[in-house]
């Protein structure tokens, strides 16, 4: 075997900018479930809530009909449940229907992302490539976010486009665009935090399974604490927002304008606390080890 048969020479290829290098990392994070066929099938399964919403829209709009109901159009009751001009129609896909899938995906993929690199011993190798811990973290975050965004934000967008293109109402766009945009933005913020926190845990701990356990266990435990705290301190507004998931839902609802309560500051502070705490711990852990080898 011989690597350089005719003496040393440099690799003569144009080098790409930093963001393209980080893109390679983000794609790795995004493609993680697709390494096995079962993973791909499981991921496709997460599109069910979004596709279910789309089918429901087609049913209520009368585009899909069954038997005698053909041509009768959507019932007023069904239309009131599923109104594509309202923000909550889009937001509940993320806050209600996708919850189990979101937790499963973050525990399965996001929690593994960095812990997997640490277990493989690849982190230090990456630092020698000039990848910074911040760039590395952001790349994984983008990968995980995209993975969750496709079955949620992607489906929201698809539903809106279908609703717009099938609507007979000439003022549909002016009536629905702002609520849709607010729901879309609220959902995006929720997903950004929902992928950020488990990724931090993945960076902090050394084992992927432990990261998953801590993430799901932490969500459940803090959820329980928030319920108890809420029942004890009934007069304190937003005390239940100590739980990250509740704070995420509240913040998304505030942005989407689907709630009467004014808890924007409380939910932002709660999430800010978790983001700063876990984010700073993650950055500390990602620094190249300065210890006796």
């Amino acid at each position, binding site marked *: *075997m*011989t*690597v*350089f*048969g*005719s*003496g*040393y*020479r*440099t*690799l003569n*290829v*144009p*080098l*790409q*900018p*930093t963001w*393209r*290098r980080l893109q*390679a*990392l983000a794609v*790795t994070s995004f493609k993680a479930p697709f*390494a096995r066929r079962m993973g791909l099938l499981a991921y496709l399964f997460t599109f069910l809530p979004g596709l279910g919403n789309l089918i429901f829209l087609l049913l209520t709009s009368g585009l899909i009909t069954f038997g005698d109901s053909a041509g009768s159009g959507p019932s007023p009751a069904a239309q009131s449940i599923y109104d594509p001009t309202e923000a909550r129609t889009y937001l509940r896909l993320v806050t209600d229907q996708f919850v189990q899938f979101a937790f499963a995906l973050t525990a399965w993929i996001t929690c593994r992302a960095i812990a*997997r690199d640490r277990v*493989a*011993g*690849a982190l*230090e*190798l*990456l*630092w*020698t*490539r*000039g*990848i910074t811990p911040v760039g590395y973290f952001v790349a994984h975050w983008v990968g995980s976010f995209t993975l969750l965004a496709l079955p949620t934000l992607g489906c929201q967008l698809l539903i809106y486009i279908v609703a717009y293109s099938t609507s007979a109402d000439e003022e549909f766009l002016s009536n629905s665009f702002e609520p849709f945009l607010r729901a879309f933005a609220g959902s995006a913020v929720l997903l950004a935090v929902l992928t950020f926190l488990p990724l931090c845990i993945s960076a902090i701990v050394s084992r992927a399974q432990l990261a998953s356990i801590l993430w799901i266990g932490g969500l459940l435990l803090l959820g329980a604490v928030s319920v108890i705290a809420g029942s004890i301190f009934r007069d304190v507004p937003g005390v239940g927002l100590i739980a990250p998931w509740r704070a995420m839902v509240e913040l998304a609802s505030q942005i989407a304008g689907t709630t009467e309560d004014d808890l924007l500051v409380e939910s932002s502070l709660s999430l800010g606390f978790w983001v700063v705490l876990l984010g700073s711990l993650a950055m500390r852990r990602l620094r*190249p*080890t*300065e*210890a*006796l*080898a």
Partner: protein
Amino acid sequence: MILCSSVGKTFGQVAALGEVSFELDSGVVGLVGRNGAGKTTLMRILVGLSRPSVGEVKIDGRSPTSPAARRLVGYCPDFDSLYDELTGAEFVAWMLRLDGVGAKAAKHRAREVLDELGLDEAMDRRIRTYSKGMRQRVRLGQALAHRPKAVLLDEPMTGLDPVARRELSDEIHRLGQTGHIVLVSSHVLHELEALADRVLLVHQGRLIADGPVRDLRAKLEDRPHQLELKSSNPRRLAERLVPLAVVDSLTIDEEDDSLRIETSASEGLFRELTEIGADSEGLIEELRVADEGLDSVFSYLVARRGLKA
């Protein structure tokens, strides 16, 4: 090209490296020292993973953390650092992408370097199916793929069988002959004898010797070397080894499936072991040089310099 001037590193009260100075311009250089001597700390400083507490390192006149310097250096760490679910070609191509090489060029170059390293048939198999030697070649491949001028290999021989050691040695030798700087660390001086033109000997964070390997070797001549072999069938291996003139003594540890050999003719013994390894696959699973002789060199040099052993 690599300039290390008065480099020191402390961790709290512990001095891991102190006042280490040397310059590397070409050829294969061995970095030898006992476990914990400071070899890995020095390697990490050279590749920019750690900053020296005092002194400075320059790679072609630049800081090791600068992008230009990073492109000049390839690093093969002493730990596994591979993704088992990727193929060898995918892993090396991915590392190249992180170097800034485009997807198509990265794939092409990864295949080229692994082909040149003898992994032509295995490069499309998942890494989890690789032997230790093959994994080592993939690690070497990622260090060489971006065509660095200097290659830093941290304990590359650890855990390899005699045939894989021989192949890796040949490759390191060729790299040195083709204008590269190759810094190979090992806690076994013997491993570097046939490879290195020059040896840096570190002890307790200090550079206690820097010179041609034969000068250090001369101090070992009157001492026998000890080797430890792991085998699937130690008795059968012993039957092959006992008749050899190069074996001074041999003990079998059946509980551990290992043999301990003492020899005064280590080069001849390594030749024989390579042949046995090639003839009977699996008979030699692992080879470890328990080189008592190195200790004697350390003791000699340490005593001469008035340091604590």
